[in-house]
């Protein structure tokens, strides 16, 4: 099948065959095996030959600690199911053990996932590819010192950090059914990364991702959240995705885009209550492909492995601008795709709780938030004239930028509040970092 010249993109694909052999544990819904199933579909559809296929090196300790804390990564490295008992306290601290179990080969698995995203970012930076795909990655819930939602290391943050060396503005879009909290949190206070997440909100993991969460400080209005309800269909989703993302691209003008293609927003997912089919999900990928910006496509959630494989194979075909037959090719995991043995899913008949009125309101508010964002922030800071200081949101900035020879403006003086931690006198210094109100208590006690 001839490839259209004008639509041609160099697509790099990162995969390591070890990844399918890691097992989270008996009965756990996250199955790395789905990545292997995706790979086999890609191969048997004949898409492999049009890709550039790389096996990334596992990420090193130093690479991963560019975001995560050292003691967290050390823990991941040294703890194993055999020596569990030595690590009870740390397991609690790092939230490992229940949702995020300690399984055999966990550290290697994280290395592969992160390695793929790092390799993808470097490939894009060097302009050796237009689209870079890493289905092993997309684990967006992991935090700096904490595992969460089946994610241990946040390969997305690591990849974006790499991209930021060469790209002024990076856009992160998350179409997983869960809120992309790990990535949003990491970049909550910066304007160089804009995070946009479409997700189910309301009595749903992880509990963050409200409309009103837009970022703080320099990052204010550089985080967007689109909360949705159960049962959203392809048309409804695109009716809100397209206008918002068009405006984002227009205003923010990112020089690189990272798309997390979590497949749990599909119909029939074990955890996700949405009703998307491959067409609606894949339309998000083709939306960005058309913009011709360097694009990184990552995996993510997806708890019905056969649908995950279908979705990501289809999106690989989209990246290559290739059409693939609806009848699945015979492959090593063919029996998993019964009883239809077809690629595309039928949309479910469940109720779509997102009324058009609701979607319209959400869209309006999101676009409002977007309006408040400064268009295309440049990296250099401009010297701020004195009289503009009083309108600044970031109060410390006002203080820093003010003319040192003149007394601080009254608005700054008034808003200057002693930091809570100033009187921090607790014994837990360095260890009990989560306890934010310690300073206050200590101050009250000593007063």
């Amino acid at each position, binding site marked *: 099948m001839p490839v259209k010249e004008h639509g041609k993109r160099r697509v790099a694909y990162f995969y390591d065959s070890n990844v399918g052999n890691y097992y989270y544990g008996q009965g756990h819904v996250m199955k790395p095996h789905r990545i292997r199933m995706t790979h086999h579909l890609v191969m048997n559809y004949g898409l492999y030959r049009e890709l550039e296929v790389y096996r990334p090196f596992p990420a090193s300790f130093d690479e991963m600690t560019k975001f995560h804390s050292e003691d967290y990564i050390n823990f991941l490295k040294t703890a194993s199911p055999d020596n569990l008992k030595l690590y009870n306290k740390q397991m609690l601290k790092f939230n490992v053990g229940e949702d995020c179990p300690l399984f055999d*080969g966990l550290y290697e698995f994280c290395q592969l996932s992160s390695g793929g995203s790092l390799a993808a970012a470097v490939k894009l930076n060097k302009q050796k590819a237009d689209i870079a795909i890493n289905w092993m990655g997309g684990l967006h819930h992991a935090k700096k010192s904490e595992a969460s939602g089946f994610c241990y290391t946040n390969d997305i943050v690591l990849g974006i950090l790499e991209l930021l060396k*060469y790209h002024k503005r990076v856009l992160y879009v998350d179409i997983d059914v869960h809120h992309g909290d790990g990535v949003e949190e990491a970049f909550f206070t910066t304007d160089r990364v804009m995070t946009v997440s479409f997700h189910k909100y309301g009595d749903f993991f992880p509990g963050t991702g409200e409309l009103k969460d837009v970022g703080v400080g320099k990052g204010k209005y550089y985080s967007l959240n689109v909360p949705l309800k159960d049962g959203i269909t392809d048309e409804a989703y695109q009716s809100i995705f397209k206008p918002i993302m068009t405006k984002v691209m227009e205003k923010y003008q990112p020089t690189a885009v990272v798309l997390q293609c979590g497949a749990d927003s599909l119909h029939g997912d074990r955890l996700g209550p949405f009703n998307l089919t491959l067409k609606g999900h894949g339309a998000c990928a083709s939306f960005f492909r058309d913009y011709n910006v360097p694009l990184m496509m990552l995996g993510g959630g997806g708890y019905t492995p056969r649908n995950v494989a279908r979705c990501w194979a289809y999106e690989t075909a989209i990246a290559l601008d290739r059409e693939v037959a609806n009848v699945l090719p015979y492959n090593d995991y063919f029996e998993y795709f019964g009883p239809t043995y077809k690629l595309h899913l039928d949309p479910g008949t469940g109720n779509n709780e997102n009324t058009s009125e609701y979607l319209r309101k959400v869209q309006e508010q999101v676009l409002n938030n977007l309006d408040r964002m400064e268009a295309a922030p440049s990296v250099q800071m401009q010297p701020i004239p004195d009289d503009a200081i009083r309108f600044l949101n970031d109060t410390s900035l006002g203080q820093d930028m003010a003319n040192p020879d003149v007394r601080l403006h009254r608005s700054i003086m008034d808003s200057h509040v002693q930091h809570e931690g100033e009187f921090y006198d607790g014994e837990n210094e360095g260890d009990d970092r989560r306890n934010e109100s310690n300073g206050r208590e200590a101050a009250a006690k000593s007063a």
Partner: protein
Amino acid sequence: MADEEHSRSAASDEDEEFDVPDDGYDDEVTLDEEEALGEGAAGADELAALEEEGEMDIEELRRRYGYGMPPETANGTTSIEEVACVEIQTEVASTSSTLNLLSYYEHHGGDDEEDKDYIPYDKKEPRVDPVLYQITVPDFCTSSNELQRDYPCTALWISSNKLEDAMLQLIQEQMKAKNPEIRLENCSMVLASKCFQSDNEDLLFTILQVGYDGEAALKASCENKIQHANLPINTWSRSYSPDGDCEHDVAFSNEEKQMFDVYYKEFGKNFLQIAQKFPERKMGELVEYFYRYFKRSARLEKYVHKGYIKEKDCIDVAENIRQQIKTAENRKSKDMSSLWEGTPTKDLV
């Protein structure tokens, strides 16, 4: 922790659609028993009390049943009205700083019989702290040093226009060996045929290694030197040696298959424990065997035997599937291996 384990394993792994047989039988035995006890008078009181409750204010109701002040919830009204029948372990919800995704979903089955108090999933605020949570964004890099940086990867396949030529060459050489009068069109037809739709990553890797030279690739295959492209080194057999002389396709022997059957029945999907019984095999191998061979045959049986397919169609469909598999395998092994001998067929069944 033990409860978690139990509830997780209780949720079965089978992820195909099936209808729970529901013939609408409504068990009213207990109601009948109660009536038989003859509580006529008590019954009347009960009815009066229920009527009263119906008129009552919700606050009074709460106080009567000892709920005190209503909890502050983000969506206060909906939490009371919703009858979603979910029981959530409250200790988990309130004490752990990050919520337990799995345990929440284990109980959220849709098969709950009775109304329990509905506690909404806690709303969380975004956390801000430059040391604990956020990352300091590195400076925009202008030095060329950083841009030179390369992330180490092994190139397994780079697409190229030269591929078609290489493939044609390969086919031509192979077919010529059998029939010297072969023409190019025949080879193109073979190339366009269905058996070449699917990609063999080992073959493509070899073609890459020899610089897209069809002849050299053929030579490599004839000399049994097809290199494996993406072997699962960490998670596979210890007998693997990186020089290429690997026993990658060391199939599970019949004894091993039987052992696996036995231990699977005993331990379930606890591959760590099963792996202890297979000293020569790594856990990853067992996982792969499970997904690729064990489960597939089991799945086939399930589709045939569990009544998803009607009895009269039963044999036909199964036979159909078996036929499809057989012809696809034959086609694959016949065309592929006849064209390049020596490619190990991945036939571990």
